[in-house]
C-alpha cells in the first residue's frame, strides 16, 4: 500500500457575496496518494459534517477535466501546480506527507464569490451571447463536405475551441483580463470559412462585452497560458487584437 499523507489545509471560507471571508485551517489524516484533489476535499467535507460543521462549497461536475466547472486556486495557482490539468484532475500523489495546502476561489472582479470556493462566471455566458457563434439557423446547412477546410486550419480551430471556459486565465492574470477566453473563441472562427461573414462584428461585440463585464486589459504577462488546463496559446490573444484592429478600419 502506498504511503498515506497527513495534510494541513488552509481553506477560504465565505458565507456569501457580502461576507468578508477568512481562511480556516483543517487537519486531514490518512489521505491516499491516488485520490484526486476534489476527492480529498470530499473526505474533508465528510469529516466536517460528522463534526457538526458546514462543509466547504466548491463547484465541480464532470471531474474529468472537460466541463470547466471546478475553479480552485491551489497554493496561489489557479488549478494548482500541475500544468495543463484542471483542479479535478490533479491527484494527491503530487503532494508529500505533512504538506500545507492553501485553497482559495478564483478571484476577479468579473467573478464574484457566491460561497466559499464557488464563484459566479455568468459573465462568460454573456460574452459568448455577444457573438461567440456562427449565426446559422437549424436546417440551413449545405452538405458537410461542400466546403473543404484545410486540415491545418481545422486543427488550429480545434486548438482554440478546446477552451473549457473555466476562467483560470482570468484568475491568474494580474489584470483579471479575459483576453485568452475571448481570444480563443474569436480565433476559432477566423480559421474557418463558416464564421467569416460576421467576424468583424463578432470581435467588436465580444470585446465590448468583455470590457463591460469589468475584466481588465491584457498586458502580456502570459500567466493565462501558463495555467490554462487545455494549454490554449497566447497566440489567440494576438489574433483577437488583429481582429480588433480590423474593426477600426472596417
Amino acid at each position, binding site marked *: 500500500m502506498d504511503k498515506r499523507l497527513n495534510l494541513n489545509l488552509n481553506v477560504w471560507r465565505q458565507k*456569501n457575496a457580502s461576507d468578508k471571508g477568512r481562511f480556516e485551517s483543517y487537519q486531514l489524516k490518512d489521505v*491516499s496518494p*491516488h*485520490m*484526486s484533489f*476534489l*476527492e480529498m476535499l*470530499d473526505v474533508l467535507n*465528510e469529516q466536517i*459534517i*460528522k463534526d*457538526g*460543521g*458546514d*462543509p466547504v*462549497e466548491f*463547484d465541480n*461536475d*464532470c*471531474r*474529468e*477535466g*472537460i*466541463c470547466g*466547472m471546478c475553479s480552485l486556486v491551489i497554493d496561489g495557482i489557479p488549478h494548482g501546480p*500541475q500544468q495543463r*490539468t484542471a483542479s479535478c*484532475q490533479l*491527484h494527491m500523489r503530487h503532494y508529500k506527507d505533512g504538506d500545507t495546502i492553501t485553497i482559495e476561489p478564483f478571484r476577479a472582479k468579473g467573478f464574484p464569490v457566491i*460561497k466559499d470556493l464557488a464563484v*459566479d*462566471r*455568468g459573465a462568460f*455566458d454573456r460574452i*459568448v*451571447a*455577444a*457573438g*461567440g*457563434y*456562427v449565426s*446559422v*439557423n*437549424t436546417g440551413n*446547412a449545405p*452538405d*458537410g*463536405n461542400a466546403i*473543404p*477546410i*484545410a486540415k491545418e486550419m*481545422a486543427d488550429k*480551430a*480545434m486548438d482554440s*475551441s*478546446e477552451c473549457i*471556459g473555466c476562467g483560470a486565465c482570468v484568475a491568474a492574470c494580474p489584470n483579471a483580463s479575459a483576453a485568452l477566453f475571448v481570444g480563443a473563441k474569436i480565433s476559432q*472562427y477566423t480559421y*474557418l470559412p*463558416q464564421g467569416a461573414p460576421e467576424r468583424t462584428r463578432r470581435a467588436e461585440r465580444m470585446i465590448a462585452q468583455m470590457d463591460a463585464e469589468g475584466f481588465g486589459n491584457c498586458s502580456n504577462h502570459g500567466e493565462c497560458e501558463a495555467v490554462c488546463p487545455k494549454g490554449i496559446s497566447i497566440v489567440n490573444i494576438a489574433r483577437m487584437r488583429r481582429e480588433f484592429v480590423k474593426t477600426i478600419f472596417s
Partner: protein
Amino acid sequence: MSKNGILDSKIPDGPIEQKWDRHKNNIKVVSPANKRKFKILVVGTGLAGASASASLAELGYQVQTFCIQDSPRRAHSIAAQGGINAAKNYQNDNDSVFRLFYDTVKGGDFRAREANVYRLAQLSTNIIDQCVAQGVPFARDYGGLLANRSFGGVLVSRTFYARGQTGQQLLLGAYGAMMRQVDLGGVELFARREMLDLVVIDGKARGIVVRNLITGEIETYSGDAVLLCTGGYGNIYYLSTNAKNSNATAAWRCYKKGAFFANPNFTQIHPTCIPVSGDYQSKLTLMSESLRNDGRVWVPKKAGDNRHPNDIPEADRDYYLERRYPSYGNLVPRDVASRNAKYVCDEGRGVGETKLAVYLDFADAIKRLGEDTIRDRYGNLFEMYERITGENPYKAPMRIYPAVHYTMGGLWVDYNLMSTIPGLFVLGEANFSDHGANRLGASALMQGLADGYFVIPYTIGEYLAGEKLPKVSTADEPFSKSVKQINDNIQRLLNIKGKKTVTEFHRELGLIMWDKVGMSRNADGLREALKLIPELRKEFWENVQIPGDAKNLNKNLEFAGRVADFLELGELMALDALERNESCGGHFREDFQTPEGEALRDDENYCYTAIWEDQGTGKKPLMHKEPLTFEYVKLTQRSYK
C-alpha cells in the same frame, strides 16, 4: 397497444423510409403569429436541451431554459469523447441509412422501436451538416474533407469526431446557437436552477417548479409545454462516468406526476473505463471506445500471473475478444465487451492491484503506425489516463474495467417525443426511445441532437396547434400547492438530523445496485435488492444528516433530494429487471444465457417495452406493455462471432 389509449405510440403508417416524411406532411404547423404566443420551458442544456432551445426560438417560440450548472455549456454532453455517427457513406464502404438503422436495432438487441430508429438514422446526416455549418471543428483529412473512424458493433467507418472531445465541440455548437437566441431575445436563460416538480393543470403539463441553488428560493414558471432534457440516471450506482450533478430527480418527479417510465433497468455498462482505485472514489472516468480501434484487449492466460504486462510473452496472453469474436474482435458492442471483461476477472485472470481490470494494449498499433500517429489520434486520452493513474500508456498497456455509463431506459414517449402527460416532451437520454437494450457507441450524441434540432421543432406544433391551452398563472393553486410540498419536503429532510451523511447513503445504494442490478443479474439477487432498497430508504428518512440550511448554496441538501429519488428509482429498476425473464443487451440475466454465455433473448414472451405507471411510493407500480414488431430487421440471435 390500442391506437387510442394513453400508450398510443403514434407511429405513422407506410413503408419505414416514408414514415417520417409522411408524418411531417400530416402534422399541424403553428402560424408564425401564433408561435410567439406560446411559451416553452426547456429543462437541461445538454445536446438535446440546447439544440431544442435554439431551434424553437429560431422558429419564434418564447423559450425559457433552465440548467443545474453555473453555465449551460457545462452540461454532461460535454464529456462525450469519441464521436457521432452519421450515415454519410463518405468512406464508400457501403454505409447507408438502412445500414445505420439495422446496426442500431441489432445493437439494441431488438428492444427498440423500428420507426424511431429509422428516423434517427435518416436525420443523422442532417446533424453533421448542421454542426459543420456552426463551425464545429471536426477532424479532416489532408484534402480538407471530413474524417471518420470506426466504433463498436458495426463494420463500417461512420463516426465523425473532433479529437477525443466530440461531445464538447458539438455542445459548444448547440450552446452557441442557443446563446445567439439569448442575445436575440428568443431564449431566457436560468442557470443554477434544479427542477423539483412538474405542474399539471387539467391533465396537461403547464409549468415547473425549480429551486434557485444560490438563494434557495423555490421559483415557479408557467408555459404551454415542458421539454425535459435532463439526461440519464446512471449516477444511481454512485460510481459511474456521469458528472456529479447528473441525476434522475426531474424525470422522477414527472413519473410521480403521471409520466410512465419505460425499461428502467436498461443500463449501459461501458467496457473501457479507468478502474476503481479506492473507497474514496467519487466517479469513474471513461476512456473512449474509439481506443478499441487500435488497442487490443487481453489478460494473462493463467490466473495469478503477476508479471509486469510487458514481461508476459505473446504465448501467455489471451486476447479473449479476438479469440471469441473473430469477425468483430475488439470492436464488439459495449455490452458484450463489458461482460467478457467480467468473465475473465471472475476467473481470477484480472490484472492490477485490485484484480478487477483487463489490459488495453497499444504496443502493436505503435509498432505498426508509430507513436506520433497514435498521439495524433488519442493524445488527449493518453494524457488523461496518465494524469489519473500516474502510468504512461505509451510504455505499458492501460488497465481498464467496465463502469456504468448510460441509461437506455427513461420516460416513455410516443413518436412525437411526448410522454403520457400531454405537453410534457422528453428528449435525449432522458427518454427511452431509440437504443433498445444496448446503445451503440457514438449514438447518444446523434440522438440528443436529432431530437432537439430536427424532431421537436416539428412535432411540438402538432400538440400546440391541436390543443386548447387556456392561460395559466403561477399564482394558480397547483403552483402554490407544489411549492408548499417542496418546502415541506426540504424541511423534513433538514429536520432528520441523523448520523449518516448523504454520501454514505448514496454509496450504500450504489453498491446494492452494482452487485444486484449491475452487469449481470439473477432472480435471487434482484429479489434481495427489492428487500434491501426499501430498507435503506426507510433508514435514510430516519437517519440522514444534512448540514446547513435551505437559504443558500447547500450541495448536501441538493444531493439529499436526489438520493431520496434514487432510493425509489432503484426499486423500480430491480423490479423491471426481475420481471424481464430473458437476457437482452445490457440486461444480462445469469438465469437466461446460451451455453456459450451469450444473452438469451425470449422474443416470444418479452418482445415488448415495459412501461411502468406509478401507484404511489411503497406501492407496486403497474406495468403496461408496448409490443415491438420487427418488419424490416429480422429478429435473430445477435452474433458478433
